[in-house]
């Protein structure tokens, strides 16, 4: 057994991180936020195609079908990086649509999914297709809590239809979403630690105060436990592990963002700080593919089974 990432996996991570830092750094993120607030759209088609070109969506397609031929472990590494960088758009749905919806693999199509319970759909206004659905439904835009996740309310939405569309994809969708959450959770640890080392009160960096230190330490513990769960689920492909990973990753992303906000004090409550963007996106993702209640019920059923 060697659970550590291989050399290739490390290189892949470094490559994606480099690409995203160059192409979607902090300035790009903030101008995307401004554009989204003005226009109600969030997907940068140019970036989408670049991600496609780098193999982001076709990663798991066989080489014979024009894909990269890698597996879930590589996919979660790549999605973790996208989560760190807060890349907006239906990344998971488009990835799952590669090889199914024309253009998804190359990033020339934007594919969303009925991955939220209820009647809301993310990125509908910019989507070319909905995963597993024959037609694009008509929807009415609602004001979204996360500026970079525009939402539409659709007439004949969720319910049984939507379930049927996504059910085949739920486990992988949940796992890839969990990977995005882990990336965000690790990023907010970094943001909190950096701020705690710079900001001074009472004549010393606030990071020297134990109350702050302990918030940061717990953030790391949450993120590390969730990260391992995501990697393991990617290696085993087990739906129960994927559900557990989603559960822990949702919690890590949401609670880390909140603690990060706390560490930033008043600055954390401003639009200027990125913390709220991480928190709001974490909230969106926690509602996607598999909620905490669903994951817990699934795990409870498995637990009973495991007891024989």
């Amino acid at each position, binding site marked *: *057994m060697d659970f550590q990432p291989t050399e290739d996996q490390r290189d892949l991570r470094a490559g994606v991180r480099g690409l995203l830092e160059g192409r979607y750094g902090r300035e790009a993120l903030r101008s995307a936020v401004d554009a989204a607030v003005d226009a109600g759209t969030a997907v940068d088609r140019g970036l989408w195609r670049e991600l496609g070109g780098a193999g982001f969506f076709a990663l798991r397609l066989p080489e014979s079908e024009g894909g990269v031929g890698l597996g879930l472990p590589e996919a979660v590494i790549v999605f973790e990086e996208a989560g760190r960088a807060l890349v907006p758009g239906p990344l998971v749905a488009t990835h799952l649509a590669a090889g199914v919806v024309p253009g998804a693999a190359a990033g020339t199509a934007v594919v969303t999914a009925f991955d939220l319970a209820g009647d809301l759909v993310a990125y509908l206004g910019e989507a070319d297709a909905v995963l597993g659905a024959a037609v694009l439904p008509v929807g009415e835009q609602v004001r979204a809590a996360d500026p970079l996740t525009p939402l539409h309310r659709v007439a004949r939405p969720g319910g049984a239809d939507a379930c049927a569309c996504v059910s085949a994809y739920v486990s992988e969708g949940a796992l890839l979403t969990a990977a995005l959450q882990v990336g965000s959770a690790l990023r907010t640890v970094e943001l909190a630690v950096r701020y705690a*080392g710079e900001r001074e009160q009472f004549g010393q960096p606030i990071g*020297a105060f134990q109350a702050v230190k302990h918030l940061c*330490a717990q953030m790391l513990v949450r993120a590390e436990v969730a990260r391992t769960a995501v990697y393991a689920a990617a290696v085993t492909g087990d739906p129960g592990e994927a559900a557990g990973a989603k559960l822990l990753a949702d919690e890590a992303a949401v609670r880390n963002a909140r603690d990060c906000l706390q560490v930033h004090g008043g600055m954390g409550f401003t639009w200027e700080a990125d913390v709220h963007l991480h928190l709001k996106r974490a909230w969106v993702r926690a509602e996607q593919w598999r909620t905490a209640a669903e994951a*817990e019920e699934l795990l409870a059923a498995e637990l*009973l089974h495991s007891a024989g």
Partner: protein
Amino acid sequence: MDLAYTEEEQDFRARLREWLLKALPELPARPSPDDWPGRRAYDLGWQRRLYEAGYAGLHWPVDAGGRGATPTQHLIFLEETERAGAPYVGANFVGLLHAGPTIAAEGTAGQRARWLPPVLRGDEVWCQGFSEPDAGSDLASLRTRAVRDGDDYVITGSKIWTSHAEVADWCELLVRTDPEAPKHRGISWLAMAMDAPGVTVRPLRTLAGSTEFAEVFLDEVRVPVGNRVGAENDGWRVTMVTLSFERGTAFVGEVVACRRTLGELARTARANGRWDDPALRRRLGRLYGEFGALWRLTQWNVSESERSGGVPGIGGSVFKLAYSHARQELYDVAAEVLGASSLSLDEEWVQSRLSSLSYTIAAGTSQIQRNIVAERILGLPKGR
């Protein structure tokens, strides 16, 4: 990232399983928790069986009498013995998990030859004399004095919370050898015979009602200078080696045990109708997910230490923090499943619930672990 075990590892597992099937039915009955001589004999007996079968000191270096097995094989060993319901290390805990590895890493050839074989053979029991009444979390402020007199140190002071002191032959003892030096610099690490004149053990009653640990009083106890492991006044560094072993590998088998307990709880809840409560069911489901992740974190840490040459990293602090709290939550949920019968000490798991309360304290409290994570992993500034 690969969770598959190699053929060699699978062979190892299969042989171990087969051996356990044969060895376990031959074990004598488990003694009652307060029968200390009985517990000592039982734990040492099991250690001897392991020794004879070639499983003692599995992960210790060969030149320390061990088998030089990989961390992964050690992991498999802990997993399989726990799964089979084999006895836990028990009274051999300190000898096998801290004093032994420390002597193996820091001791002279003579010291290794003197102390390691009896630990592996199940002949001698060790205890850990680190904490003092006024030095717990702030361990380096310890005051027990060792004054050089010819070839001996003469030791006066007292230790507290010393687990298994009642039945120990040896104590890994931290003493102050230079009272003038800064507090971390004047400490030495000694092996002290527990039957030396001047050693008095006074058992302390734990909240579970047993005498798991004790106070140890030291009144002009003579310990040969040759029993010092590491240089004089270098004991703090030696101690850090000990603690990394303590946090790094101590809880592996227990994660497996917790997952089993959780399964039993689910079965009990279904039998008594509590399973129909969605809130409770969901809490159990969540814990199942958490312990699953903790098992994976264990594998992660083990394969990381395998890559870095075997010494556990400070990732052990991350694990200990998550695990100790999850374990307490497990027994809180158990109490909810069992309702009023959770008030009876006759229920074995109630004892476990009580003992789980020590996990956020022993081997460094959660607060101290968070300081370690924040300062040594995250690089936050030290507080004043």
